[in-house]
């Protein structure tokens, strides 16, 4: 099975062909936005990072920036720095060069201030855009797709309609040789034994236990006992009986195949199949981690409704119920509420999501793209010094 994508010089496959203007430091955000604003057709992603990171946090922020800017959906990237920051454009450009990404860079201090840096940036961005515009889509095997799985604004239907349907789509992609990544480690709590049984080997099994218990310990160190309070009295009133059941409602969006690998936040899997990415349960931070891990399309289930998109990767929204779909039709691509209405089944909606995935990968724009949603964030492990 094929989709129409962009073949990059390093062999990777993209579903979009963006030129990205990216500040490596918060201080260069405005200049980056000014440049992107003057070069129609570029995208920009701003954030609060780039300085004061130490240890594991520094590694994760750099890994996220490199993964995001070197992503196959980015035809070329213009890095914008200030000059005295920890993570200068050179730090990122050096990593990107190893992977053959097309990159240009400019810095405010070196250029001689805001206006000169904007002028130089506009010139460089225009050049990147001209180069990118000549790249055409070609037929690529669907096994090269990595689907990121995400849920946000969950409701009582999430675990009954949209997540199981997305699980069917994940299974279909994995059956075609592709990859699906699910994340949000705290939502796996209580289901670690169930997940561990599905591990492809002993290393994966060990990683599952380690990552989940680390997430629990971290919450505990901040005074929060996640496990002891689950399911909440509200959950129980709503019909959820055990923490296993609650967690499975989230995890089911990954389908039912073998878990082949556990990766860190923003780390690229080396195996194909179903993968766990250790990471935050915050929606935007999850999306960006999935992209940095290589996802070229994200499927996002929502009960209450959420508008979020990303700067570079299409997000397919799946509502869990028809009320939310009707209220927020302009934001939602697929309605899994038809399963409740008796107009569809978990299997039929799963196949619909898989079909949509192929079309979106080949260029069909999602609702979030039409509306211009480009939310971006890099989660920090803190403390920032």
């Amino acid at each position: 099975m094929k989709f129409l994508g962009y073949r990059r010089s390093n062999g990777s496959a993209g579903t979009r062909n963006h030129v990205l203007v990216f500040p490596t430091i918060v201080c260069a955000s405005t200049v980056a936005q000014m440049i992107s604003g003057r070069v129609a057709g570029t995208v920009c992603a701003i954030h609060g990072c780039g300085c004061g990171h130490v240890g594991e946090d520094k590694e994760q922020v750099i890994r996220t920036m490199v993964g995001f800017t070197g992503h196959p959906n980015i035809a070329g990237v213009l890095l914008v720095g200030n000059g005295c920051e920890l993570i200068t454009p050179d730090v990122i450009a050096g990593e990107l060069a190893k992977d053959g990404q097309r990159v240009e860079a400019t810095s405010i201090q070196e250029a001689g201030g805001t206006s000169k840096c904007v002028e130089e940036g506009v010139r460089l961005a225009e050049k990147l855009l001209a180069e990118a515009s000549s790249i055409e889509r070609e037929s690529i095997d669907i096994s090269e797709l990595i689907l990121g799985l995400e849920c946000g604004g969950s409701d009582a239907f999430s675990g009954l309609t949209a997540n199981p349907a997305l699980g069917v789509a994940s299974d279909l992609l994995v059956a075609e040789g592709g990859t699906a990544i699910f994340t949000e480690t705290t939502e796996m709590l209580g289901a670690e034994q169930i997940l561990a049984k599905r591990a492809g080997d002993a290393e994966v099994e060990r990683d599952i236990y380690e990552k989940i218990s680390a997430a629990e310990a971290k919450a505990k160190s901040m005074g929060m006992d996640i496990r002891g309070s689950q399911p909440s009295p509200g959950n129980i009133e709503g019909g959820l009986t055990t923490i296993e059941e609650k967690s499975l409602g989230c995890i089911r969006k990954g389908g039912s195949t073998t878990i082949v690998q556990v990766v860190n936040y923003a780390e690229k899997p080396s195996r194909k199949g179903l993968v766990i990415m250790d990471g935050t349960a915050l929606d935007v931070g999850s999306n960006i981690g999935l992209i940095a891990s290589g996802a070229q399309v994200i499927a996002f289930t929502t009960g209450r409704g959420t508008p979020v998109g990303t700067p570079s990767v299409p997000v397919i929204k799946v509502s869990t119920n028809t009320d939310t779909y009707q209220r927020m039709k302009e934001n939602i691509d697929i309605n899994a509420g038809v399963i409740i209405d008796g107009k569809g089944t978990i299997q039929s909606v799963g196949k619909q999501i898989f079909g949509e995935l192929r079309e979106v990968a080949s260029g069909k724009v999602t609702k979030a793209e039409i509306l211009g949603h480009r939310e971006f964030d890099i989660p920090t492990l803190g403390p920032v010094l």
Partner: protein
Amino acid sequence: MQKKAILIDKKDNVATALCQLGKGDSVQVGVEDFTSDTVLLENIAFGHKFALRDIQQGGAIIKYGEAIGLATKQIRHGEHVHVHNVESQKGRGDKQ
């Protein structure tokens, strides 16, 4: 027509109500070519589960094709399945 209840996985021995269901109601659920019929022995609220067959004390409650807990007493086909007759195998910090 609005569906009364949903079965997620063929292996499951519980289904979940998608609306308020009453004692004596007949409910059919299915996945692909598999179907299962139940006459409810009690009222089942939206989002709550009922047994698709008899479950022995100590038997696994299966939803999503996985064990979500163990029956603390015999559960009959059509009975409400919830915290009064199910115990988590994993949920409590003091039981790890």
